[in-house]
């Protein structure tokens, strides 16, 4: 496990922290304002695209809206889609939690990854229904599995979670679990604010 980053203002800022990443990392991000989370995600992907890296955006958002937002942010979406560096996927709106979540996630990611070349930059979580116990439970299992296999993924993966959506009665429990299955944490509560560090 890596050492804690030197706690200075410079690398504690989420964007600067992402800019300084050299090794592949599995990062959990807790946010409150979706716009700020998306900005961080776009900045992270944009830096990768400009370096010629394959970048994956896989969330529950509508693909056309994501493309529009990416363009507004300054990403040349058409160019990067055409040269196959940018991969945008929509995670299904609903999910059958009676199925094995790890197998389902594996199937989805096998398909997504088949068209990519490492090093990768990934911005994705499998579900948004974090207020449901079943959903967050499945998600934490997926994260634990992913973290155990992370050496096989040559890339950096940001898993964004809206703190306000996480099941309120057990919020601390889930946050602790999520932190323990990642190598770095970003707290990005609202625009231009937050902290980031390695665990």
């Amino acid at each position, binding site marked *: 496990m890596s050492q804690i980053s030197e*706690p200075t203002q410079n690398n504690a800022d989420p964007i600067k922290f992402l800019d300084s990443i050299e090794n592949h990392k599995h990062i959990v991000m807790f946010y409150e304002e979706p716009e700020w989370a998306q900005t961080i995600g776009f900045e992270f992907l944009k830096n990768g695209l400009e370096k010629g890296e394959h970048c994956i955006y896989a969330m529950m958002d509508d693909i056309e809206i994501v493309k529009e937002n990416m363009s507004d942010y300054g990403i040349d979406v058409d160019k990067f889609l055409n040269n196959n560096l940018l991969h945008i996927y929509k995670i299904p709106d609903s999910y059958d939690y009676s199925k094995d979540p790890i197998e389902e996630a594996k199937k989805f990611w096998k398909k997504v990854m088949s068209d990519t070349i490492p090093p990768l930059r990934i911005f994705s979580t499998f579900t948004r229904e974090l207020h449901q116990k079943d959903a967050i439970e499945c998600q934490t299992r997926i994260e634990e599995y992913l973290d155990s296999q992370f050496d096989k993924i040559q890339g950096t993966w940001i898993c964004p979670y809206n*703190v306000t959506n996480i099941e309120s009665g057990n919020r601390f429990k889930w946050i602790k679990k999520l932190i323990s299955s990642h190598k770095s944490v970003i707290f990005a509560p609202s625009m231009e604010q937050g902290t980031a560090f390695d665990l």
Partner: protein
Amino acid sequence: MSLHQIISQYGFVPLLENPEKKLAEFLRTSLEKRLSKTLVDELISNYIQKTNKSADEILLNPELFSKAIEELFGEKVSKLILKLIQEDLFENGMSDSADNSIKKILDEIRKNSVLEFIQKIKGHEHIAFFWANNDLRRYLFSEFFKNAKSVKGFISMEGLDDATPYITYDELFSNKSDSIEKEKDLIISTHKKNTTSFPTLLGGDNCDRWFEEGLGHDFLKLEKYVDKFLENESISCICGYNELFLSNGEHIGEILSSHKYVILDNPLMIYKRREK
């Protein structure tokens, strides 16, 4: 158990003056900016339930505050978050170094709060002061008396300076049968000389001597009388006790019951009896 913990069991809470409230507010905002408002709200309300303390009391208790963060994020992350908050405090002019711990900053604020409280005293305050060393005892009584704008009366082991007249405990106990009356007379006669609108300042720096002389029971009655007397008279009075005397816990409850304020050392802090 420390005296700070003991007196909180007797219903005394830290007297939060503006600088402390400002620090509590700053700590909360800094955490919210660093983590998330939702998390901080939950963290604090969780600890309010656990400890039965107010949000400000939790934020202004460095041990509790760091424990709360540590329970959620673990030791390493907690240390980092606290370090970032220290940097925020420094950048916002609330500390003169980014290396100062929250405890150090708070101790400084509290020390200043104690001094400001006793220097700008308004009258009607009956304060128990449990001192741990002689330097602090002398320092605090000097600060109390030095800006006096009215009359002052002091019973002391050794006095302070020429500007503060005093009688010694030895004089007071020269005839033990009238020691209580002698002290009562001193209080009343000193106060009668006060023709100003400012409070009369009274102090005794070693009240445990009464117990050593076998007059503890009568003195505790006098303490109760003084506490009542001060409600209607513009007098501010500090009763100093050596902490060592309180260590067996025998008289602390009775002493506390006749004072509305308590000043403690390590760290220097002022407490007020919780309003019912």
